[in-house]
């Protein structure tokens, strides 16, 4: 079946247990969470949860309806047909031996990311960007040896058309 990745942004009550309710809904019904990011919005009573999920049309329709049904979920935003900005942040600890240290720094420079930690045999690189940029960077760094990665999960906001 034609499964697609879908990014949903949920505005929810900022109360204990709400995140548990939502992740419980996904696990209980066998829906997939590829990544999840949650924090307060400008309104202290409301949090935004950004979830990346995968499924075919029928499943994605069910996911949105089931989320809407939850008492604590105020709004479900599906970015599918809207112009949207996506970003994710990673910290990548890459092996950096003397022979190719310079090459790594060149890549960092080209991608306009930052080196935030340095040691005799490693660099830790901080990168922010959309999925394409991040995948491209990871592919270039992989041959050098990636020791550890920490990712935030995708966040998204719709563009305002003037």
């Amino acid at each position: 079946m034609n499964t697609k990745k879908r990014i949903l942004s949920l505005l929810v009550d900022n109360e204990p247990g709400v995140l548990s309710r939502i992740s419980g809904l996904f696990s209980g019904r066998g829906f997939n969470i590829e990544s999840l990011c949650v924090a307060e919005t400008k309104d202290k009573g409301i949090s935004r949860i950004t979830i990346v999920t995968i499924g075919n049309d029928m499943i994605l329709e069910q996911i949105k309806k089931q989320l809407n049904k939850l008492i604590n979920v105020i709004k479900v935003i599906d970015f599918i047909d809207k112009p949207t900005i996506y970003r994710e942040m990673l910290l990548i600890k890459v092996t950096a031996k003397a022979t190719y240290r310079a090459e790594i720094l060149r890549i960092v420079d080209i991608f306009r990311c930052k080196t935030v930690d340095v040691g005799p045999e490693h660099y830790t690189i901080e990168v922010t960007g959309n999925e394409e940029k991040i995948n491209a960077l990871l592919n270039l760094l992989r041959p050098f040896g990636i020791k550890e990665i920490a990712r935030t999960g995708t966040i998204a906001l719709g563009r305002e058309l003037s």
Partner: protein
Amino acid sequence: MKTLKDEGVDTIFGYPGGAVLDIYDALAQTDIDHILVRHEQAAVHAADAFARAKSTVGVSLVTSGPGATNTVTGIASAYCDSIPLVVLTGQVPRPLIGNDAFQEVDIVGITRPCTKHNYLVQKTEDIAQTVKEAFYIARSGRPGPVLVDLPKDIINTKITYKEPTPIKIKSYKPTYDPNIKQLKRVVSLLKKSERPMIFAGGGIILSGASKDLTQLAKTLHIPVTTSLMGLGAFPGDDPLWLGMIGMHGTYRANMSSASCDLMIAVGVRFDDRVTGKTDAFASQANIVHIDIDPTSIRKNINVQVPVVGDCKRTLTKLNEIILQEDFKKVENKRAPWLKQIDEWRKAQRLAYDQKDIIKPQYVIDKLYELTGGNAIITTEVGQNQMWAAQFYHFNRPNRFITSGGLGCMGFGLPAAIGAQVACPNELVVDIAGDGSIQMNIQELATAVQFNLPVKVLILNNQYLGMVRQWQELFYKKKYVWTHMECAPDFVKLAEAFGAKGFSASHPDEVEDVLKKAIAIKGPVVMDFHVEQEECVYPMVPAGAPITEMLLV
């Protein structure tokens, strides 16, 4: 207590404990009735049946820890069947929460997936508002159980009562009124249809839409079937009645679903017990799906005309539109379809062949005859439940109370108690099996204590009947652990609790036992020793289309 009274609560089903001592103390100062059960699971099942019989919100009160965990099965059953309940659980004092205290469990965490919503109240000031909100959520939209966890120190604190504000939840706004454009589409489909049928379910009963459903069916001569949960929504003795649909539905109901060109599904969720193989279900029909819950629509079956709305409001509006339209000679148009259905009915009737051993179906038949179809029937789960559904022809809603979605054995006796409390002047009968009845048999004590004249009708075949049937049909008759050895003498057991008990082993004894039991003004247990290897037919094997039925 004040909030409960303001919400119209007159009865609570409960079991006290340490964490709820203060609540029970306050309860004694009100005029709210309390039914003391013998197991917290029964408190929830009883409140569930009370809610169904009286069309109100059922209320249970239990203590923390094991009291709360004992309610989980009952809550799950109410969740599956969409029954409005408020379950109040005690909790340890706030400083002890999360500390592995005595009789502490995270009941909010445990019941998150099986409640419509739940709360842990954090401040005394919030109690009234939270309980009021719990009732609102339980009874509105698609009803469901709501749990409110009350820490002991909050209950213990004295504050001045502040009236709760009207409920306005910005993230919860059910749609009650249907889209008129969609209804007009339904009417135009009705005009073109030659072979329509109506498939109704529990939603009709919860919404109180039985009269509107009957009006629609009879105005346009449309045959009607229902799911298990919908039995009673349409009169079971009407010529347009098709019988129940699904895995153990009637031949004509299942065959009609495959041949109809228009199916109006209202207040149903297309459960797998009904649909069988989903891509073969109603494959020739345009399907209209009316339901208050958008998640039920297009979850299992793709439908052509979805209508989100309350059943009663939607059918009322639909009937209004229909009255203004001209349905020419609908009776003549419908005649060939109804004739076909009649042929199916004649080809396969629900039948049994009784000689010297009591057939379970005969007991239900006799019960129906002696009660004129007017009793409130609760059931356990399995063969007893299916025969009750097949052979007792309900003609009114709120009379058939069964654990449909969860299929919870042990539901019937506490449910009979709850229904009897709700309707003290009605005859209430629990149709049970010898397996199921043992799961909550202790509730006979509750029936005796409160003199609730429930009648427990045990179809005793010394087997876990439905499982044995599957083992017979699909596992080469290997009856692994389904023979219920060492069952008690139910007559002696009834008497031990202080109730009356009768038994019958021959068909000639059945009518007498039933008559005696009905006449007694107190709880009675009837132990019918029935045919041991009887099967429920028709049966649709799991995964097959519902037209492929195993027949008698």
